[in-house]
């Protein structure tokens, strides 16, 4: 009875667009959903540093290198903002990281694809960050206060990421024949995984119902995907690249682009750990965690020593 009343009061707040804060009462499912969603989002930022880290030492100019370094540093920062938000839900960062390390938690499947050429740095910034931004702009209005605040900060920083990627691919698209081919090849490989980043169709998405009612999600997977496609087609056209979808066509009546069928078998195969780089990404993360052990130990020893000094003094 008590819980029914609390649930009604909770829903009334959500309906009135009042944010939920960490100490407020919330249904257990709301808490669980957010723990899962925010930590997956955080893990994606952290693992997302790897495909770009792959090109850091091979960037074609000093400018390209500092830009890429700044972008990767932002991603580490975004991961930390998100772990902070996730921790307010009563679970520690250590626990979330443990779930990533043991593959209990997922991260965005897009990062399980390899980055084979410099043009891929363009495609990742333009398409992968572009898709992420569409999702994150919508999440700025999510009902959980700490998550919404994190998203506002992330969106502010993220807009340079997409522009730097588009600049790279645009430069290559107007370069030599070989460079143009490389740009088109990057678009070919990243297009479908990018539009699948928004997740399954609404009709097949088990988490949409409550998430929309509780305003965790402010738009559905299909709405966000459509908005990304509508924005991106023109950007491909003006740099002379072709989106690899023969069914892509402007639909005057709907005011949107129609597009072809996505390969959901591949999507689920990659989600379940069968992506081309799935094993490598996790192993690299775990190695980095192991290799950093002495740093954590040294930091802890130093802090213990400071505390003893204070006591003596």
């Amino acid at each position, binding site marked *: 009875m008590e819980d029914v009343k609390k649930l009604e009061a909770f829903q009334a707040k959500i309906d009135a667009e009042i944010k939920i804060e960490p100490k407020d009462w919330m249904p257990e499912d709301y808490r669980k959903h957010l723990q899962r969603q925010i930590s997956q989002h955080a893990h994606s930022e952290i693992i997302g540093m790897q495909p770009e880290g792959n090109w850091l030492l091979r960037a074609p100019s000093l400018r390209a290198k500092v830009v890429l370094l700044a972008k990767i540093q932002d991603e580490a920062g975004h991961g930390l903002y998100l772990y902070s938000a996730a921790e307010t839900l009563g679970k520690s960062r250590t626990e979330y990281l443990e779930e990533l390390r043991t593959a209990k938690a997922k991260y965005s499947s897009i990062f399980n694809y390899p980055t084979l050429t410099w043009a891929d740095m363009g495609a990742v910034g333009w398409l992968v960050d572009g898709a992420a931004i569409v999702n994150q702009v919508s999440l700025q209005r999510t009902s959980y206060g700490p998550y919404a605040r994190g998203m506002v900060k992330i969106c502010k920083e993220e807009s340079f990421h997409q522009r730097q990627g588009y600049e790279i691919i645009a430069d290559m698209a107007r370069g030599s024949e070989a460079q143009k081919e490389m740009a088109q090849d990057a678009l070919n490989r990243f297009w479908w995984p990018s539009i699948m980043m928004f997740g399954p169709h609404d009709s097949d998405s088990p988490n949409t119902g409550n998430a929309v009612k509780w305003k965790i999600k402010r738009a559905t997977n299909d709405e966000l995907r459509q908005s990304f496609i509508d924005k991106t087609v023109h950007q491909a056209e003006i740099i002379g690249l072709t989106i690899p979808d023969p069914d892509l066509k402007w639909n005057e009546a709907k005011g949107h682009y129609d597009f072809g069928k996505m390969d959901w078998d591949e999507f689920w195969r990659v989600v379940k750990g069968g992506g081309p780089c799935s094993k490598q990404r996790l192993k690299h993360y775990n190695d980095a965690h192991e290799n950093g052990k002495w740093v954590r130990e040294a930091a*802890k020893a130093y802090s213990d020593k400071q505390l003893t000094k204070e006591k003596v003094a």
Partner: protein
Amino acid sequence: MSEITDSQGPIWEVFIQSKPGLAHKHVGNLHATDEEMALQNARDLYTRRQEGTCIWVVPFEAITSSTPEDDESFFEPNNDKAYRTPTHYVMPEGAKHI
């Protein structure tokens, strides 16, 4: 999950003054094992784009907060004191600059 030992250090809340003259504003938190590391991490994490001129870091444990359950009784005493706001007072017609 309680068998996992925490490797992240305690939480520090971060406050940034964006320019002289303004109040320090809460921007988020981070983990660090000592106050110097907390300050340096805060600089790297929260001021990558000239967001501030001064940073405070405060151990999370040091903060005492009111709780939502007590909100009503805690803030209630001020709800019926409209005489604390200027619009409560009736000014003579035509009075200016007041």
